[in-house]
């Protein structure tokens, strides 16, 4: 099916089904119940998970396959966003041209930055990409303000030309759309004591994400993907097999930069604002962490990592002490205070602590990331708790190997 083998096809179908059902799956708790706080089925979060899933999948094409750890990938996300918002300011609010331009521009930047950075490997490569991204961030924040609107971020304005759309009617800003269908329109369904929101923007993101995911599967399974894994595994052997690793890594870098640009463009399509913060090193670090957390080199891992981090960020940061009080009011007073105090350290303003602890626990106990955890779980359900051999893993995905060799000079 579509050039995928049977296993991959069913895998893709499951992913598609999950994506379509996300607005329902992320809304497991009844409205008004104490646990409704944990519901994540609102458009913004679902869009973010899909978009950062794309970003992480793209990053994984570079990092998971070739082993080159870029610490400046957020620059392409930011550049994509700026390009997309400019397209919306100048040409049209239709998101298609904006997203195409975002991919194109970040692809060009990726080609230039990658060409230079890929002359070094290992940590030297990481620092080069980091340096380029930090430069972009600093410039966007200050001297490039006419182009980026600095701290505030690039926004739409009523007096933008928007050549294709013509003059704005009324005095409110136009909304992003795809051939007239607004991104922010939603269909709400109240059923089973829950409100399910089916949002055009989310399904648009989800469609693109599935497309991006499909392309990634094809790429993982292609000779090209195999070559990229060869780069990670042993560049010396690759060279002496008559292959030039450089164009392969550069192509991977550009593809992954374009994924980042696509994600940036989608961010702008969902919410037409492009801020310099998107290019900060912590944002680059975030995608690295999403990928490792989920499982580098696996197909689904990065998406899972992106979902977990965005969920923690958006849901845990909103659990304040009054919410906690709502949960634990049935406890005796003294105990309640203690319990609330403990929980408050990990939620609300303490949500970063949850993040940090999650990182440490996952990487210590699940070396392959969350996906490894899922695998162990399904193994245990299937076969009881019998010990698993390292290589009898039926999963079609590539497993990250222990180490890699680099050609000597």
């Amino acid at each position: 099916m579509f050039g995928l083998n049977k296993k991959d096809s069913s895998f893709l179908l499951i992913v598609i089904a999950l994506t379509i059902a996300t607005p329902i799956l992320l809304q497991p708790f009844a409205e008004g119940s104490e646990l409704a706080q944990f519901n994540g089925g609102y458009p913004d979060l679902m869009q973010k998970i899909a978009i950062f899933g794309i970003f992480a999948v793209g990053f994984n094409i570079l990092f998971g396959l070739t082993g080159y750890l870029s610490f400046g990938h957020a620059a392409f996300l930011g550049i994509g966003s700026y390009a997309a918002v400019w397209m919306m300011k100048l040409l049209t609010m239709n998101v298609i041209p904006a997203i195409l331009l975002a991919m194109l521009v970040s692809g060009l930047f990726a080609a230039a930055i990658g060409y230079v950075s890929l002359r070094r490997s290992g940590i030297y490569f990481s620092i080069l990409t980091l340096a380029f991204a930090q430069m972009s961030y600093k410039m966007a924040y200050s001297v490039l303000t006419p182009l980026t609107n600095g701290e505030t971020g690039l926004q739409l304005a009523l007096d933008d030309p928007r050549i294709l759309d013509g003059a704005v009617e009324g005095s409110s800003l136009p909304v992003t759309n795809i051939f007239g269908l607004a991104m922010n329109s939603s269909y709400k369904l109240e059923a089973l004591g829950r409100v399910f929101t089916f949002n055009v923007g989310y399904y648009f993101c989800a469609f693109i994400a599935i497309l991006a995911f499909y392309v990634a599967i094809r790429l993982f399974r292609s000779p090209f993907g195999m070559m990229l894994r060869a780069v990670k595994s042993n560049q010396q052997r690759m060279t002496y097999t008559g292959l030039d690793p450089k164009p392969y890594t550069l192509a991977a870098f550009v593809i992954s930069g374009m994924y980042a640009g696509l994600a940036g463009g989608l961010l702008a399509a969902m919410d037409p604002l492009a801020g310099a913060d998107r290019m900060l090193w912590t944002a680059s670090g975030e995608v690295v962490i999403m990928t490792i957390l989920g499982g580098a080199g696996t197909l689904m891992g990065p998406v899972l990592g992106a979902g977990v981090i965005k969920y923690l960020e958006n849901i845990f940061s909103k659990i304040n002490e009054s919410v906690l009080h709502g949960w634990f009011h049935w406890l005796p007073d003294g105990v309640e205070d203690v319990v609330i105090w403990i929980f408050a350290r990990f939620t609300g303003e303490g949500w970063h602590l949850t993040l940090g602890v999650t990182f440490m626990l996952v990487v210590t106990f699940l070396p392959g990331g969350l996906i490894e955890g899922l695998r162990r779980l399904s193994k245990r359900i299937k076969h009881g708790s019998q010990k698993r051999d390292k290589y009898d893993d039926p999963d079609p995905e590539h497993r990250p190997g222990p180490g890699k060799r680099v050609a000597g000079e």
Partner: protein
Amino acid sequence: MSKTDLTRRTVLRTGAVAGAGLALPTIFTSGARAFTNEPMGGTVTLGFNVPQSGAYADEGADELRAYQLAVEHLNGEGDGGMLNTFSSKVLEGNGIMGHKVEYVTGDTQTKSDAARASAKSMIEKDGAVMITGGSSSGVAIAVQGLCQEAGVIFMSGLTHSNDTTGKDKKANGFRHFFNAYMSGAALAPVLAARYGADRKAYHLTADYTWGWTQEESIAAATEALGWETVNKVRTPLGAGDFSSYITPVLQTDADVLILNHYGGDMVNSLTNAVQFGLREKMVNGKNFEIVVPLFSRLMARGAGENIKGILGSTNWHWSLTDEGSQAFVKSFGTKYGFPPSQAAHTCYVQTLLYADAVARAGSFNPCAVVEALEGFEFDGLGNGPTLYRAEDHQCFKDVLVVRGKENPTSEFDLLEVVEVTPASQVTYAPDHPMFAGGALGACNAG
């Protein structure tokens, strides 16, 4: 592969149905509601979007305390605080128009993206009908834009840039806090009176939009009184060590250093300037002076002794003796054990003003609220008689010129009010060039 195709088409069709069902596309649509998140049932939800991580987390925490206090007072708990001194008396301590006030909180992280994501989740998930908070102008402008599009009211927290009610003003957004122009207009006469009219000023400015608007405002106001601006130097945000920007000041004949910095940058640049002996310096036969146009008491603590005698401006200070301020300090201090910051004050006031506007308008509809707030004159909220100007949704009120206190009596007693500049002196025309370039647009009710 027909199955996936089918599924995709289904998705598109669902979308099309949803889209076709709407006359005007909005973030939120629900047939039953007249406007975004119209409160149903006996409660109304407000969204408090404050920095909980990053450099401004302490200000965010103080804002949150103020919001919680405001909610208590609106719901008729506690001692009522400034509700008792507020000139408008429509609020009865029964929530807002009988709807009990509930709130949700979120973390802006002082990043536009995170702030918008947090505000969106409040609107989309929690049904907040008003968003308020923030401790930087970039975030305020970004969230204000979002609220305009979503059709909810935005009552900004601490934002000092001219742009918030200047070129980026929005019909659904309101600012109680003062701005850079007002700082300049209030400070300049005091500076001229104390330091003389023939001063040479050297600006160090945080290199982003807020810094630039303050630099522009202060330079214009001081130049109008005869000062000369020797140099304006941009410093990177979060530079840490400012020594390489401070030392060049030594070689100029400037006799005043103006630090257009906020937060950690302000603390560090001021500490560095004092370390380099600038305050003991004599130039042109005059004492060298340092000015910090925007003071924040919370931040000033980080600079310790170095703020003593430094002039600046602030929106409000807990040592004010008017009835409203005292009532607020009393209820805040009793609840938390320390006096509120200016950020806390402005956030508390904004919440009350919103509630009051809803009550007066008799509706939560943003457009009704906008109408009720525009041109609203009030008193008793700590800043004297105040006007919410209709043209730009900026509050006009007295501005405090303050100075770092020489002999503080407690760890909170860091600033003393030097002068209360009357509102008339800091008022400007709505089309003032520093505020030009934007339009309020029409209110959006979603």
